[in-house]
């Protein structure tokens, strides 16, 4: 019963991969070898497609693998398996947070966690900036520092940031405009 097997394998991935979508990658590589359901070559396509479509990368990867192994319902079953542990664990954590509300110990932990998560998200933002506006691979090839910097995109970034601050529109509006501008300017 391929659906049950898929569900079980992705349930294990959802339970053991800590740290978000990309943390599931090593598990998916191991799954390819241990089951023979798909090839390592499919994993490259999986990453490319998961990064270029909307939605969490981890979910996109699970759906893509499931689809390729057992069709549409394979994709559904793999995804459900992957999110089930999240639902159970987060509900349990939420329940215990309610019980410890007002606890100085929990407050103190969050006193450390809030600045930390700000730093982690800033780091995520920096890596998006690096990947989207700089070409360090080109710089390594040519040795010209100017080749590493994509001025067109940096100007667009600055304009986008000013527009976000000034107009306070829904983020979807900016994302849609950015896609159109990317197409028009051939980014």
């Amino acid at each position, binding site marked *: 019963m391929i659906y049950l097997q898929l569900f079980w394998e992705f349930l294990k991935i959802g339970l053991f991969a*800590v740290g*978000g*979508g990309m943390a*599931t990658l090593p598990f998916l590589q191991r799954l390819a070898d241990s089951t023979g359901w798909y090839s390592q070559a499919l994993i490259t*396509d999986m990453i*490319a*497609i998961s*990064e*270029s*479509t*909307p*939605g*969490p*990368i*981890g*979910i996109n990867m699970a*759906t893509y693998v499931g689809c*390729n192994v057992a069709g549409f319902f394979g994709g*559904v079953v793999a995804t459900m398996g*992957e*999110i089930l542990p999240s*639902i159970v*664990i*987060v*509900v349990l*954590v*939420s329940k215990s947070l309610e019980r410890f509300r007002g606890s*100085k110990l929990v*407050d*103190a*932990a*969050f*006193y*450390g*966690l*809030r*600045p*930390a*998560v*700000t*730093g*982690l*998200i*800033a780091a995520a*933002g920096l890596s*998006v900036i690096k990947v*989207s*506006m700089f070409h360090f691979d080109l710089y390594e090839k040519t040795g010209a520092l100017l080749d590493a910097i994509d001025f067109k*995109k940096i100007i*667009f970034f600055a304009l*986008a940031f000013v527009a*976000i601050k000034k107009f306070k529109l829904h*983020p*979807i509006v*900016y*994302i849609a405009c*950015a896609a159109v*501008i*990317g*197409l028009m300017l051939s980014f």
Partner: protein
Amino acid sequence: MLHDLLTLYTLFFRMGAVTFGGGYAMLPILRREIIENRQWMDEESIMDYYALSQGLPGIIAINVSVFIGYKRRGIPGAIAAALGMVSPCIIIISVIAFFLSNFQDNPYVQHALAGISVCVAALILDAVISMWKKGVKDGFGIVLCLAMLALSVFTEISPILLVIACALLGIGAKWKSIHAQKEENGK
């Protein structure tokens, strides 16, 4: 109740359909919908959910969705939010897997995505600035936030370890007041 669950499902469906890049890229849209438009919770709660989601197993975007869904409408709310988040992925990825081969190599797709990723970087920067204002309130917070940023940019240390260390540092910094509460409870 059913109406509330449907609202949660469609809200997270919309967010899943327009978020490129998963967990942290979802933050600007999440802040807009949950904090500003609906005022369901405050900036601090969202930061807490991100911090916890980073340290728990599973996909970060799903964990955050489940936290919010559970907070709104208990376990049914948690399930509605998670299903809303994954539904667009299942639809989009299945269509691509079955009908559009080489979707990710299409130059138009690549130009649009290049524009989107610059915009996402600007949106994340905007979110980080408001998180900094809300969550980083004293010298301890500034040091912790900058240290986390530097450690995650320049080292390979797992963010899970960083998150746990920061929770412990928070407890350490507030040890005196925790101790005071314990004595009070003891009396």
